[in-house]
């Protein structure tokens, strides 16, 4: 995917919008302290889309929410989250409130609960514009209508309430709200899980065109591999709070090297028209909860390639052949 930037980055540092280093999110429960996110690092450049993929409980949503400090108060977050050079985790509340919405914005997964049911859609979009850009009512209204047009919604939707819009339209309204104040990065948590495939495809088109036009970076947390394949440039596969494989999207899907990635892909039904009738090959069992991790590699109890040394240490993410894999016995590069 080639992105048209409205200004060329003068250095690698300029191109990098978000850099996450050694992110941990810990919770205190009766059983003790456990980590939902257990040491994650990644970066995203201007106009680029990174997908955090994995199944329930892997830590992808917790990671996404932690970037904007939207986790509940009992979450203990540590590490560095650098947005264009400033560490979001170290910002005082007031400074963070200015950054949220205007530099980094969230697209939540269920528009029906993310939108205020008693406010008209236009008013909700305008609210952000007036808060971050100090626009007067008339300018905010004009910008709102322009935003609605840009996301493919007719102007009259500004005066409707969320429940009067379809699921796809609500998601478009959420996207309008998110891009309203010109953020450099959007964080989307399962943005299409409530939508049918036709609407989902339209949202992919919309997001990509907004990215091309404005150079916005995008971080998407999703369990929908097909959706991630369509939208993302790179994919990071999460398992039990860690990244186990990180590669270009096409590469990862065509030639997975971590056994879990391969297992996920084999769990999918065959592509349309493939006509295969063989049973699906799901990964056996289910992921261990954070307070009951096996020794060594977290995946070894479910891994068809597990060997003795896998019980000893938890493998680090290492670079091999243009990607990163955390495995002592990765699949061969074909």
């Amino acid at each position, binding site marked *: 995917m080639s992105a048209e930037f409205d200004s060329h980055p003068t250095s690698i540092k300029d191109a990098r919008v978000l850099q996450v280093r050694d992110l941990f999110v810990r919770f205190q429960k009766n059983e003790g302290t456990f980590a939902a996110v257990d040491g994650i690092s990644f970066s995203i450049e201007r106009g680029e889309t990174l997908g955090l993929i994995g*199944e329930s409980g892997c830590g992808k949503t917790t990671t996404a929410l932690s970037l904007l400090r939207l986790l509940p108060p009992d979450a203990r977050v540590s590490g560095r989250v650098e947005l264009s050079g400033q560490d979001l985790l170290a910002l005082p509340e007031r400074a963070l409130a200015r950054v949220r919405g205007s530099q980094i914005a969230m697209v939540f997964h269920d528009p029906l609960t993310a939108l205020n049911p008693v406010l008209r859609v236009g008013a909700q979009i305008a609210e952000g514009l007036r808060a971050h850009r100090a626009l007067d009512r008339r300018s905010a209204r004009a910008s709102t209508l322009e935003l609605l047009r840009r996301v493919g919604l007719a102007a009259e939707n500004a005066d409707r309430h969320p429940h009067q819009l379809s699921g796809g339209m609500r998601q478009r309204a959420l996207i309008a709200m998110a891009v309203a104040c010109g953020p450099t990065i959007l964080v989307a948590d399962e943005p299409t899980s409530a939508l049918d495939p036709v609407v989902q495809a339209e949202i992919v088109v919309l997001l990509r065109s907004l990215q091309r036009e404005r150079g916005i970076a995008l971080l998407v947390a999703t369990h929908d591999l097909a959706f991630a394949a369509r939208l993302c440039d790179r994919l990071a596969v999460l398992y039990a709070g860690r990244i186990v494989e990180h590669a270009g999207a096409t590469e990862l899907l065509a030639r997975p090297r971590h056994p879990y990635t391969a*297992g996920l892909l084999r769990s999918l039904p065959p592509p349309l028209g493939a006509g295969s009738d063989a*049973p699906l090959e*799901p990964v056996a069992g289910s992921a261990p909860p954070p307070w009951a991790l096996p020794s060594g590699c977290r995946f070894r109890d479910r891994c068809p390639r597990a060997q003795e040394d896998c019980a000893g240490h938890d493998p680090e993410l290492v670079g091999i052949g243009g990607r990163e894999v955390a495995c002592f016995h990765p699949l061969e590069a074909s």
Partner: protein
Amino acid sequence: MLDRISFTLQPGEMLGIVGESGSGKSTLARAVLRLLEPARGRLRFRGRDLPALPERELRAVRREMQIVFQDPGSSLDPRMTVASIVAEPLAVHRLERRSRREESALRLLRAVELGPELLHRYPHELSGGQAQRVALARALATEPALLVLDEALSALDVSLQAQMANLLRNLQRSLAIACLFISHDLRLAAYLCNRIGVLSRGALVEIGRPAALVSDPRHPSTRALVAATRA
């Protein structure tokens, strides 16, 4: 909401119903089980005309049709143990003596590949995948001739979904149950089903074998769905 839909379902057949949101898929599921009253039309189950049946006889027919919903969280009674949940249809339809119910519950759990350790657990102690299997076990308790799956796999993660899909396939084939598989996931429906019907705005616009529908979609709604799934 549903407009003159006609189709037949044979024993042992899995018929997929796909379509966009709001196309009427869930309405159809409920209408077939007569959880909703159709305004007009014929609904024949095993040769008997359903809308004409008096309530008492309908109850007998009801145990031959069962449904599994998308969200086990709302379909499993949180105050009941797994054993009670799974054996409840047997109690309701008076199909077995109380003393035999735990045995039946075990048998049903085994059929959905769950072990006896879950018998005395409550729904909140189950994972999403386990809860959905319990819902399926309950649906199979009365040995129904028709099983309606209303987005039953849609909320499951990829590997759980695959496990359930394999389980469904095996059960359906070994028990020769007729299944109505309602889903927005065309890829999964194409893999599991013998035929697929496409709903659009309450109407059944196309119906046929998955291979044919996918290679040569006729109706614009089908084409849109195939293109979006393929993209």
